[in-house]
């Protein structure tokens, strides 16, 4: 390996640090704002930078009517949608990669097409369907939409990944007498961990943040999810920004935790390298 000169190292590190600072500064600013009380107008830099850290706003937000309850609701909704969405998506992707059936390409394109429809347009028909199934105001109705929508995205994403898995690997299973299920469960899923990890983050963040559908389907205040509670902090005429930011921090914590859990998978590419003799 050629040793990089000190000069270059300094330049590279400076660029990296600068880049990181650009991304992290607004976030730090946001955290500092959560320490400010009575901020009906956005506080100024001087106020923000001289603030004494305290948890007043966090406590106010967390103990505010049902906020903690909404947090648990959201965990349940996003958690179940994550597991089912990923599993069904992987199964669908597998069938698109390994099975031949009539209308396969057409079906796949239809899948893609549904991804292009803006959510706002789909909300009325989706609601109508859920309503005629009698699932308004139930999590089942919500999951149906989330999982259904999630399957499309994850199929698209995983199909490409599955195609890169060498065929000879599954032949070894077939020789040992295993079937499709075994190939899927013991070869495809373990080898796709990086892709699944990435998808898990996106899927969780997607349903965790989802607002429009949740608001349309869930009518009962007690069943509402976190993004709706977050939006309630925004008043028509005035908003307490300290509260909004504190609530936002609480809302993004689980997403960050999920990210930390799964981020290792991002870089763990190439598991199947060397598994097949060239």
């Amino acid at each position, binding site marked *: 390996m050629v040793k990089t000169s000190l000069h270059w190292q300094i330049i590279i590190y400076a660029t990296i640090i600068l880049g990181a600072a650009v991304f992290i500064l607004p976030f730090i600013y946001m955290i500092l704002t959560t320490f400010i009380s009575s901020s009906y107008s956005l506080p100024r830099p001087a106020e923000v930078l001289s603030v004494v850290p305290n948890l007043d706003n966090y406590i106010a937000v967390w103990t505010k009517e049902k906020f903690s309850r909404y947090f648990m609701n959201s965990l349940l909704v996003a958690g179940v949608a994550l597991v089912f969405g990923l599993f069904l998506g992987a199964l669908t992707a597998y069938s698109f990669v390994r099975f031949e059936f009539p209308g396969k390409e057409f079906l796949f394109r239809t899948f893609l097409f549904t991804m292009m429809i803006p959510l706002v347009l789909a*909300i009325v028909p989706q*609601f109508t369907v859920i309503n005629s199934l009698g699932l308004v105001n139930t999590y089942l109705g919500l999951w149906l939409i989330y999982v259904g929508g999630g399957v499309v995205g994850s199929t698209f994403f995983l199909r490409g990944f599955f195609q890169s898995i060498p065929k000879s690997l599954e032949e070894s299973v077939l020789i040992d007498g295993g079937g499709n299920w075994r190939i899927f469960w013991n070869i495809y899923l373990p080898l796709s961990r990086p892709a699944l990890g990435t998808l898990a983050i996106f899927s969780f963040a997607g349903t965790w943040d989802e607002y429009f559908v949740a608001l349309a389907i869930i009518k009962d205040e007690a069943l509402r999810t976190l993004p709706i509670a977050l939006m309630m902090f925004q008043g*028509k005429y005035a908003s307490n920004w300290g509260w909004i930011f504190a609530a936002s921090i609480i809302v993004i914590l689980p997403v960050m935790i999920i990210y930390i859990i799964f981020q290792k998978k991002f870089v763990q590419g190439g598991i199947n390298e060397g598994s097949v003799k060239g």
Partner: protein
Amino acid sequence: MRTPLKTLSSVLTVLMLLLASAACNGKETSNAGGAGEEVVLEYWHTYSDEEEVILKEKIKPLFEKEHPGIKLKLTRMPYEGLKQQVIAGVGSGEAPDLMRMDIIWVPEFAKMGALQEVSKFDGFDEIKDKQFKTTMSTNAYNSGYYGLPIDTNTKIAIYNKKLLKKAGLSEAPKTMGELADASRTLVEKGELGGIGIGGPNSWSMLPYFWSLGGKLTNDDFTKVDGYLNSQESIKALETLVSWHEEGLISPTIIGKEPGTWDGMKHDEYLMIDDGPWFYSVLMNDKKAKRDVMEYTIRGLIPEGPGGSHSVIGGQNLVTFVNSEHPKEAWTFMKWMASKEPQLIMGETGLIPTNKEAANDPKFLETPFAEEYVQQLETALPRTPIPQWAEMEEILNLNFEKAIRGKMTPEEALEDATKKIKAVMN
């Protein structure tokens, strides 16, 4: 780019709505309404934190006590995407029984056929006579009424005491000329522009545009040509543009900081305009460092060639056509428009729409109420037509273009007139 996309999406939404409502005719009817059975009215509202407390702890128990057999189920809705929620609800027959909605939405939903015409109900005329005429008029569509006003508001001029003194004045300016002079004096002394217009949008601009002599439509709201592009309107917008060029208007008009509340708090803006929530929110803030009553004084929107005209905001109470309990819903609406509940909600600074309640000494005790009630006498509604949303978008865009110097005021208003005319037909 935004406008055609938005139009397209709203057209599609309406199409889907039609499809959806056609598909939903077979909706089952519940067995409620039988003798002795309790009726639950679902009520969507958008009250703020403090207002919701009063609603839950005072309004609901009082109504239920006076009307055994009717219960209220309160659901607080967030503003974001609320219109889509209502459309989805209406389209699938799942709209609530009652809703408190922004006054500017009523004609639009009435045109969609979503709202119950309340002028057909018993005792409507009696209720109507007790309301302020202008707020009542925001419920009108096609010679019928589709809701009752539930609270109203308007904006008045709020002055910073310290800067007013620095401008050499001891009380609030009475005319637009005095306001401009005061702002000029302060700008010469190195202060920021003192006329606090919140942004280049109609809600912020209209009080000045109207007071300076501008008009949007004729009095029946049917004709825009000859009004929006009249000499008076052009002159009004020209005055605003020239003030902006002179630096007399606060930087908020082009979206710059500090915001109006912030600039007022830090003694940077001579004047801003805002609704009663400015006082109710800030006075309720236990941790505020400065007492808002100490550093501000209130005045009417200064008079110009057109008079002193602020803009009316507020909420109306409506019931939807697919409500299964129209009779009970109407009972609640009538009750809510009566004096006592109006006074109870008035405790939070919401201005009653019932004339008796608004002039009741108990309401006028609210420290800031008087000026608002006075301003309401000459305040004007934004054009109460179903196409207001589109009209507003055109106005906002052209107001901004004029302020930013991309169009002359005359071009901006001629262009807006042409486009609004097309939308109205």
